[in-house]
């Protein structure tokens, strides 16, 4: 069965999304178990795939039995072998955690919600696993459309924010499609590996240059890379917490994966860093992205929106790291895809718990939260420390590689930006801690004994949260193994 893992990975969630949809009309209670089972199979096969990749190297799976470039093929190498388990496990954990929220917020629409949820995960997994440039576009649209649906159900302002996201997302996806069209017109192929094989004689072509620029802009739009980030904060803030904690950790990270895939596999580092040689400019863009993300986050008086700006800054980390053009930087960027997905999931799950209990996420709502929800806030502390970059949480190690890459590439601006954003993150999170810890201020040196009223989130929400929080530390401790056994094979040979 293990040779069919690549198909199972995507097909099982797809089929079960359909079953969930039908179950929604028959008996709503079946939806959740089916969805969990489907994503568990996905997670299982993605981990199985990762181990197969570790043992056997690149896996090619021909869909429909047609060999590429005629048909569509999956290529699973170290890069997506690493990203796949992250996507599926993050989605699974969030699904389990958000059960109560979904029942609270959409009592009548659990069926469609879970359908869209599983479809979205299908789309994201498909994006990561596919080896065909056009197939990626189709899956991108699945992920986006379901994402719009999920995000739009929220507060009053959610539909407008989502519609803006839809405009930007469509422009982004269409730019990507157009870029692929440009590649197709000069090479005649749609298969990523095949395009890479055909491209070298065409490196000087204006069409290839334009294709690269258009694809990049499209992908940047989708990942909210500054200054194309304007859609993200509102769309994520006003959405319901079950959706935002799926989409915030995964969508930007998967798009970063697509960017790295474009750079490494389709256009190859030789074109990107030698022929084109604009990486300095992009790194400076990333510097601005990080700085602006941090500063804009500082302005917010609202936990969820603050976190969305941190997501914008983190995108800057990864883009900058990937464009540093050296081993350490790229290692950092790839590692940060994994780490940031987990970190963002952790903090957004916390927001989900808070919203479930307190029904608000403005700073004013957080008073006394350490006493009310000590376990949730404990996990929040771990997530926050990871985002700040405190060892031994995983956030530290990706930052380590990114800074090392910056030093080796003599991009001191990027290094300063990373440190600056870490410091701002300290301010951001400790501001939240302060509100949760001190306010309302205890009178007269706190010698009174306040019996704290605990109102902790249910266990189904806490257990996934703690799984994530502990995995932040575990991933941090096993960074060495991840880098030595996986990430270093991601980077093509001969890369600096």
């Amino acid at each position, binding site marked *: 069965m293990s040779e*069919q893992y690549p*198909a199972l990975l995507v*097909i099982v969630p*797809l*089929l079960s999304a*359909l*079953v969930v*949809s*039908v179950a*929604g*009309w028959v008996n709503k209670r079946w939806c959740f178990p089916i969805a969990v089972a489907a994503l568990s199979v996905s997670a299982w096969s993605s981990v199985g795939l990762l181990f197969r990749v570790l043992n056997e190297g690149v896996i090619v*799976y021909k*869909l*429909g*039995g*047609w060999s590429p*470039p*005629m*048909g*569509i093929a999956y290529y699973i190498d170290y890069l997506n072998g690493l990203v796949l388990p992250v996507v599926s496990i993050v989605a699974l954990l969030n699904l389990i955690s958000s059960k109560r929220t979904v029942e609270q917020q959409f*009592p*009548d*629409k659990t069926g*469609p*919600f879970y*359908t*869209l949820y599983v*479809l979205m995960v*299908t789309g994201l997994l*498909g994006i990561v696993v596919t080896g*065909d440039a*056009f*197939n990626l576009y*189709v*899956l991108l*649209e*699945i992920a986006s*459309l*379901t994402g*719009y*649906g999920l995000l*739009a*159900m929220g507060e009053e302002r959610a539909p407008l924010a989502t519609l803006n996201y839809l405009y930007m997302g469509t422009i982004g996806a269409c730019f990507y499609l157009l870029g692929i069209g*440009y590649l*197709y*017109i*000069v*090479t*005649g*192929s*749609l298969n990523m590996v095949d395009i890479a094989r*055909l491209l070298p004689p065409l490196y000087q*072509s*204006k*069409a290839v*240059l*334009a*294709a690269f*620029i*258009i694809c990049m802009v499209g992908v940047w739009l989708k990942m909210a890379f500054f200054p194309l980030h304007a859609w993200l904060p509102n769309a994520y803030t006003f959405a319901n917490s079950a959706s935002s904690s799926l989409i915030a950790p995964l969508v930007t990270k998967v798009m970063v994966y697509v960017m790295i895939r474009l750079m490494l596999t389709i256009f190859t580092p030789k074109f990107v860093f030698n022929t084109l040689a604009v990486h300095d400019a992009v790194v400076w863009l990333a510097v601005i992205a990080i700085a602006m993300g941090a500063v804009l986050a500082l302005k917010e008086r609202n936990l969820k929106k603050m976190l969305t700006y941190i997501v914008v800054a983190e995108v800057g980390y990864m883009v900058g790291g990937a464009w540093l053009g050296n081993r350490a930087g790229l290692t950092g960027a790839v590692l940060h895809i994994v780490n940031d997905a987990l970190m963002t999931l952790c903090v957004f799950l916390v927001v989900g718990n808070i919203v479930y209990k307190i029904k608000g996420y403005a700073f004013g709502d957080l008073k006394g939260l350490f006493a009310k929800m000590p376990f949730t806030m404990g996990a929040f502390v771990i997530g926050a420390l990871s985002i700040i970059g405190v060892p031994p949480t995983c956030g530290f190690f990706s930052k380590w590689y990114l800074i090392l890459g910056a030093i080796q590439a003599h991009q001191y601006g990027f290094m300063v930006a990373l440190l600056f954003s870490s410091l701002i993150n300290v301010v951001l999170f400790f501001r939240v801690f302060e509100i949760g810890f001190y306010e309302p201020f205890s009178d007269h040196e706190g010698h009174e004994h306040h019996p704290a009223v605990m109102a902790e989130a249910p266990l189904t929400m806490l257990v996934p949260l703690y799984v994530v929080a502990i995995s932040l530390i575990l991933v941090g401790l096993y960074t060495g193994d991840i880098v030595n056994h996986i990430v270093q094979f991601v980077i093509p040979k001969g890369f600096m």
Partner: protein
Amino acid sequence: MKIIGLIITVVTGALLIYAAADFPAWSDPASPASTYLSPHFIEKTMEETSVPNIVTAVLADYRGFDTMFETTVIFSAGVVCFFLLRISRREEEEPETRYYRHVLTGVTIQLKEGYKMPPSADFERIDAVWTPPDLIIKTGCRILIPFVQLFALYVIAHGHHSPGGGFQGGVILGASVILLAISHDLRTAVRRMSEKLIGILCAVGVFIYAGTGALCLLLKQNFLDYSALAGVLHVDPITARSHGILIVEIGVGIAVLATMIWIYNNISSAGRYRQGL
């Protein structure tokens, strides 16, 4: 915003025009796109899949995986529209006064809150903004719809040999029901195809496609490799491919048919399912 838009547009346009200079000449038979992959499709399709319409063959077989997700896209659009717009019975406030119309005479009666009409075939429920449908349109459409549907079935079935296929046929089928909803009213259309049926049909359509693929997988072939069906269908692998394509086209047709109606129902009534257009 206008100025920013103009600048962005001009810059993008300039880049695209600049790049177009390096394109192969338009309609050049020697361009890479025409010489690299397409000759294989054109020359081998008949041998490999036994389908004369190359587009259908490539769509449903060589790149069948794309098409499966294309169907999924349309399915998810349907679910999204339902998810966003449909106002559930619990949230929906019943109007204070209900209106019923006697079908034969056209007499309309108004019921205040609390009163209910005994179920009767002679009366139909109508909305406050109800307008009598035009007889000519009503009759014309009633005559037209069967032919539209027949044509749609032809398009699906004949997709192997002529332009068309599951998608186009499905859209036309859906359009015929939408036509019914427009020419009569939404209640009539929903009575013909209930919401639950539509919702299930969408999923079933995609399921036929993906399930066919999964069946191939269970028959020890790769996903969507229709030649695996040869044993089940008792034909040779090439014909099995052709049949496989037909099966998935039917799936596409069902999914598209149902989704188009679903989206229309939700948009035209803003999720209330009362009065359509």
